[in-house]
């Protein structure tokens, strides 16, 4: 069975999408136009992440991948988009040879090659969306625009944060986020605002936002394993929080798919243990400042309430140590 105590973190800090910009960052609809519109990124952790993702998909296929039978055309649209993005950005790592509908995709990092007939799912070992998604480390969730909402019709999810492809399949954006209403300081229903914003996203105009959370000594937390990770959260102490608690950042990208009339959610999840925050002093300061000021309701919503105090205490001790060192250096 898949080990959740995986020692995985971002090693090239330049690839870590650090989420905080001001010191009172909370919830906001901080959507920005996506600058690098190509979703494929190769980091030092690429191979580790892709292999771990595939292991999860193989071990728990029903939990990690869901699709409806009517989505086949949408799946090919996705496959074509991501393969062409990969080839365009990293021609040394990926190749796509088209001979009419006979396509060959090569992944030179993993030394893999697959020839298939575009439009014929029987020529691939997995469904087209699943197959294509297995070459990239992100999670891919396709939410189809029907009436004025979005419905999860395909999901490949290997980094869940209180989410499950199995459970959430077929649900609307509102059903996934409701019935817990989350209201901003000025009383806006944030879910409603985000949904309306997503409705306005056009093909050719991708957007992005960053979401963050903490993760206590796990790769991911889904509903299926709640009995396992829920009790574990209280095992966090100020002494072990530096290693076991990781800042979990989810860089989200939104693409309107023109044939599917859907929004493709691309979720790039990266982790940084709290102890590694010291590698960049401003990251440490911002994170400490944000975490010690989290409202109760938000900590509950994010599922971090049971170990947030221990995490903040860890950061406080480090901060105190750093300040003492600075003082000693000055005096010395």
């Amino acid at each position, binding site marked *: 069975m898949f080990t959740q105590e995986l020692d995985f973190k971002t090693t090239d800090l330049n690839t870590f999408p650090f989420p905080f910009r001001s010191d009172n960052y909370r919830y906001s609809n901080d959507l920005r136009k996506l600058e690098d519109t190509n979703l494929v990124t190769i980091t030092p952790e690429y191979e580790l992440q892709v292999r771990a993702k595939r292991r999860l998909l193989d071990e728990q296929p029903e939990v990690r991948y869901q699709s409806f039978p009517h989505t086949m055309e949408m799946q090919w649209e996705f496959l074509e988009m991501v393969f062409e993005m990969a080839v365009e950005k990293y021609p040394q790592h990926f190749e796509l040879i088209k001979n009419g509908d006979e396509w060959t995709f090569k992944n030179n990092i993993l030394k893999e090659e697959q020839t298939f007939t575009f439009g014929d799912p029987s020529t691939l070992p997995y469904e087209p969306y699943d197959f294509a998604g297995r070459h990239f480390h992100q999670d891919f969730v396709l939410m189809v625009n029907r009436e004025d909402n979005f419905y999860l019709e395909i999901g490949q999810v290997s980094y869940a944060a209180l989410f499950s492809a199995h*459970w959430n399949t*077929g649900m609307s954006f509102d059903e996934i986020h409701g019935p817990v209403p989350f209201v901003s300081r000025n009383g806006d229903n944030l879910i409603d605002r985000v949904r309306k914003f997503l409705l306005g996203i056009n093909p050719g105009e991708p957007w992005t936002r960053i979401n963050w959370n903490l993760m206590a000594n796990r790769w991911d937390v889904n509903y*299926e394993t709640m*009995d396992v990770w*829920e*009790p574990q959260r209280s095992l966090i102490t100020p002494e072990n929080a530096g290693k076991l608690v990781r800042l979990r950042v989810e860089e989200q990208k939104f693409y309107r798919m023109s044939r599917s009339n859907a929004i493709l959610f691309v979720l790039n999840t990266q982790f940084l243990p709290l102890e590694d925050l010291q590698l960049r002093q401003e990251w440490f300061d911002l994170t400490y400042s944000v975490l010690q000021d989290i409202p109760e309701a938000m900590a509950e919503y994010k599922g971090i309430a049971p170990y947030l105090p221990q995490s903040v205490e860890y950061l406080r001790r480090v901060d105190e140590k750093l300040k003492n060192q600075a003082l000693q250096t000055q005096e010395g």
Partner: protein
Amino acid sequence: MYNSPVLFFESVTLTEKLSPKTHFVKAAIICDEAYKEEAQQLQAQLYDTPSDTLIFENPADVRKFIVEQKMGTCFYIVANWDDAVTIFSTAVEEGVSEEELQVKTIGEKRKYVYCMKCFTPSEIDTQAKQVQCGCGAHLNVGPFYSKVRKGYIGYPFVPEAEGVM
């Protein structure tokens, strides 16, 4: 469609008392034989709005009755839970939306929990907050409902860890 409305414990179409919905120009009433009086009471409140009534006997007749209705019709259902589910589902299959439906069920409602360990729904007491699934898993009954999974989410937990048995 996978995301079509279903009749569940908290469906917006459920009402304690049938009452004419404004906006519609015609009414179609489908009721169990035993609740004919309810239908008649509703009819009295409809005044000039034309209405058709069908006594529920079998699903085929229900479908025939529904597809003969025109746009602008509101459907009122009064039946026991199981019959109401049959009628509701048939209406939805024929394109009737929740706005065009009002349902009064008589007797016990049914509620289901979907076990996140064994992926099966099972019927539970409507008041239950914690249940044990047939597979052995202990479940907290959550607030989320899935039309695809046909139940409320059941979060698995270990009783000892929460101090509950």
